[in-house]
């Protein structure tokens, strides 16, 4: 364990631990739009930028993204210095200009004092901030179904060849973790459609409730050796069944004792 100073307070941390996880542990609020603990830090949105310095740097300071900065002994961090606030506000200003119709971006920006953009608004700007959370989660889960396509300002998140992604199992992890809820999907009747691909939802054989897609269940069954039958009834019916199974045993012991 080493000691570092954050906003004047001495704090304990693991050598080499990412600075953002220390800030989170110390309940210091720093925006981190492109961060998700399920995946490696990305360093794309730059909102978690903080000012760091050390005694031996005598006055010089650097601006680093806390999500990726490995802490080391003697680090002195200020998370809300004037310059850091200015950087944060400029980036949020750029976000508001790029995503004028996104309520999540508007709310985040206002939280840090940015109420309108000083730049030229991109009127038809969509709400994808290219934070990469969806593609990184999809990779982490082993599907690699969607990816960042193109380069620079015109970059988008898309399935390969802009067709229904062959590797997608409809698990929705991309849509459910998108900070601006940009990824569209629809659950209707027995089917789910996402990325222009249709999936059949498993219907609970007992009560008819819909659970996850068949493709997702098949993937889990094949790759994580979970018997496919487990997926065929919903969690509520599983609980009922468990109660009946344990009930038999309890009843048997009850009769045994009396």
């Amino acid at each position, binding site marked *: 364990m080493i000691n570092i100073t954050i906003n004047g307070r001495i704090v304990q941390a693991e050598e080499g631990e990412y600075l953002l996880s220390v800030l989170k542990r110390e309940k210091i609020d720093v925006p981190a739009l492109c961060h*998700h*603990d*399920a*995946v490696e830090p990305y360093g794309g949105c730059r909102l978690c930028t903080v000012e760091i310095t050390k005694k031996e740097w005598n006055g010089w300071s650097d601006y680093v993204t806390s999500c990726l900065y490995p802490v080391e002994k003697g680090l002195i961090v200020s998370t809300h210095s004037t310059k850091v606030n200015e950087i944060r506000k400029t980036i949020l200003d750029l976000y508001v200009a790029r995503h004028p119709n996104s309520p999540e971006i508007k709310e985040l920006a206002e939280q840090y004092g940015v109420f309108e953009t000083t730049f030229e608004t991109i009127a038809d700007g969509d709400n994808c901030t290219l934070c990469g959370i969806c593609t990184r*989660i999809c990779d*982490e*889960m*082993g599907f690699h179904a969607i990816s960042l396509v193109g380069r620079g300002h015109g970059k988008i998140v898309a399935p390969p060849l802009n067709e229904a992604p062959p590797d997608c199992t409809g*698990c*929705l*992890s991309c849509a*459910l*973790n998108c900070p601006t809820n940009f990824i569209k999907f629809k659950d209707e009747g027995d089917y789910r459609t996402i990325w222009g691909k249709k999936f059949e939802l*498993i219907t609970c054989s007992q009560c008819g409730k819909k*659970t*996850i897609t068949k493709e*997702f*269940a098949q993937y*889990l069954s094949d790759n*994580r*050796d*979970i018997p496919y039958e*487990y*997926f065929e009834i*919903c*969690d*509520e*019916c*599983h*609980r*009922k*069944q*468990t*109660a*009946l199974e*344990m*009930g*038999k045993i*309890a*009843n048997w*012991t*009850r009769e045994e*004792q009396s």
Partner: protein
Amino acid sequence: MKKRFIVNPSTCTGCRNCELACAFVHAENGKLGKSRIYPIDGGFKDLWVPVACLQCDDAACVKSCLVNALKRNPETGAIELNHDICVNCKACVAACPFGCSLIDEQHELIVKCDLCGGDPACVLFCPTKALQYKPIDNKTNKIAV
């Protein structure tokens, strides 16, 4: 000695105190949490079975989690879900053969029993000791007296 969560359906009266306690303990910003324990009809007269996570050794939920959000806490023996890592894909809910991974619709979260970090509320509130959290003599595998 390691403690174990013990369920004794024969003394359970189905009063659902445990369910209430669990919901209360996991309340957030004023709204009740989703209980992780449900006394359910055991299929025989006056027989209730409190169903809660069995903290399995070879847990289907842990195997189903593709982002490693479910890890066992060595002290309490409970499999704990890290909400920051969880991507809400509901694989564990679908995979658990006992239905003990649940969806908390209100807070849009996946939840499971983590034995309240070693001091389960349901045990405290169970009037008939149907639920206990006692050290186990790992030789005899019986409740250590």
